[in-house]
């Protein structure tokens, strides 16, 4: 590590014993970054900030929230009505969860488009998938906490997925509930996990950054960094670019917080949980809908659960399914088309997830599920036969060419 240069003796004293200043400067200031990163590279830093916002708003909500089946619903209403700025904390937290998923989905699609999961960034990608799984668990358990009808029945349906496991399924479900249905013990333990998992998420993000900083960012060309001329220091160039992107993102986020706080929510969740009445139409939060569609597309209980989990877990092996040496879709004509169909298909699955699972919807969901997996399974073959376009010589050359074209 290069030592920080300073005349301040106190800073020096600390830095020789614990090089936090040298370390921050190496990773945030002089940190070498490809010159050509586009706005698709903003989403990681935005996700990090959203995580911090979620943790801070969550901690302050928790100071007034009560994880008991008898009072949880009222305690959330009290937060919104009586606690000073409680409405703001809740709206930030509620919409923050949706924003978090939007940002992370874009971040992930970016990774797929530009082949960022390929060597030597496989572990970086896999840690990302773990973060995603962890986020889903956190959001699911968070949604249970307000103890409305959707909370209760969502929790019932999702935990019952585990009853599909042969032989021990029923025991597992009772074990998860801590009773014979979703009830007081369930909300108590879900609150504990909901508080704990974001801390684990935070640590996973640190490891994600660690892996990132070993081989640095991939870039829109998907080619290796070859010389110092390909790079520029993170600060001030990308600090400013990240801040600018953050500003735009916050405008969107705040629009929902202040003007449409229930846009992503379900009205039924403002009815207190009632274990005797299931609402006529239960849907999960929007960010789970594609997987919900996959679950329902399979007519068999166990089969549906397996295929749905496979849909998430297949992301772990993506680096090995894709055999192409070329990273960016820009230089892979067929992959590029398959990719965009994959994106459209994922959105379509999401739309199907909130439709009844019958008739034409069911058939469409089955076809759509088919494409979801086909995309992954075609990659090993595609990598061998696809004719890719010639790659640029270097990042520096490409940036200079663009600059010249602009000036001319």
């Amino acid at each position, binding site marked *: 590590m290069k030592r920080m240069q300073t005349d301040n003796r106190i800073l020096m004293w600390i830095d020789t014993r614990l090089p936090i200043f040298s370390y921050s400067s190496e990773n945030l200031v002089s940190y070498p970054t490809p010159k050509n990163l586009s706005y698709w590279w903003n989403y990681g830093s935005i996700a990090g900030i959203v995580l911090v916002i979620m943790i801070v708003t969550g901690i*302050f909500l928790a100071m007034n929230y009560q994880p008991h089946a008898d009072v949880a619903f009222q305690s959330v209403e*009290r937060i919104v009505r009586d*606690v000073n*700025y409680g409405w703001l904390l809740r709206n930030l937290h509620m919409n923050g969860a949706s924003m978090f998923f939007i940002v992370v989905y874009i971040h992930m699609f970016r990774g797929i488009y530009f082949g960022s999961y390929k060597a030597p960034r496989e572990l970086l990608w896999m840690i990302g998938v773990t973060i995603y799984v962890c986020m889903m668990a956190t959001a699911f358990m968070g949604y249970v906490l307000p103890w409305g009808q959707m909370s209760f029945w969502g929790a019932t349906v999702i935990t019952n997925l585990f009853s599909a496991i042969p032989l021990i399924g029923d025991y597992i479900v009772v074990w998860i509930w801590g009773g014979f249905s979703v009830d007081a013990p369930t909300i108590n333990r879900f609150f504990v996990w909901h508080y704990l998992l974001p801390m684990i998420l935070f640590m996973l993000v640190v490891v994600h950054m660690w892996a990132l900083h070993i081989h640095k960012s991939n870039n829109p060309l998907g080619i290796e960094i070859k010389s110092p001329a390909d*790079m*520029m220091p993170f600060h001030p160039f990308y600090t400013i670019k990240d801040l600018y992107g953050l500003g735009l993102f916050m405008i969107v986020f705040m629009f929902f917080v202040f003007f449409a706080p229930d846009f992503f929510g379900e009205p039924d969740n403002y009815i207190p949980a009632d274990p005797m009445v299931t609402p006529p139409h239960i849907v999960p939060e929007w960010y789970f809908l594609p997987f919900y569609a996959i679950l329902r597309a399979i007519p068999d209980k166990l089969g549906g659960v397996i295929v749905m989990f496979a849909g998430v877990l297949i992301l772990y092996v993506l680096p090995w399914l894709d055999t192409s040496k070329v990273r960016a879709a820009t230089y892979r004509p067929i992959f590029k088309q398959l990719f965009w169909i994959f994106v459209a298909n994922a959105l379509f699955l999401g739309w199907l997830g909130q439709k009844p699972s019958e008739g034409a919807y069911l058939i469409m969901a089955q076809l759509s599920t088919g494409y979801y997996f086909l995309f992954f399974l075609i990659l090993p073959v595609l990598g061998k036969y696809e004719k890719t376009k010639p790659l640029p010589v270097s990042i520096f050359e490409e*940036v200079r060419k663009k*600059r010249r074209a602009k000036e001319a």
Partner: protein
Amino acid sequence: MSEISNPSPNGTIAENPEDEGKRDFLLISTTTLSLAGIGLAAWPFIHSINPAKDVLALASTEVDLSAIEEGQAVTTMWRGKPVFIRHRSAEEIEGAASVNLAELPDPQTDAERVQRPQWLITVGVCTHLGCIPSGQKLGDKKGDFGGWFCPCHGSHYDTSGRIRKGPAPFNLRIPEYNFIDDTTILIG
């Protein structure tokens, strides 16, 4: 990778020395505005753990005095703390009023501490470290001055609730209250 040349595609960062001033201006204004923004955003969080509206709504208590005989005392709860209400006898009033102010650690006349002399209303929390003094019930220790005695570290209060002896620095606090009519008060 310590040497990164050419931060911008065709030159160094500051090609033009005049730009230095502009950069400083931008840096300082961005930093100032960001700090102001963070400060403003912090307020809702800080304020959210202040007493909420439903807590404030319970912040006053009405007490009916008609059943309290002369010489008797009752304790009522106000904002989570005991409030001592004592119906003082003529001797107690007399004793409280005739004290030489120079003897008091926290000088205050009895008249400053009551609205109607027969009713002494104080917050029943010792001003030392927050214990509840004894002296409300008949058999209680009332201390050397006939008022209250704090068992924690031995503070003695007189019949006006003033500190007379012991480590407590101040007299028992007087809550805000009003007589709604002759036999009812509203505390808070």
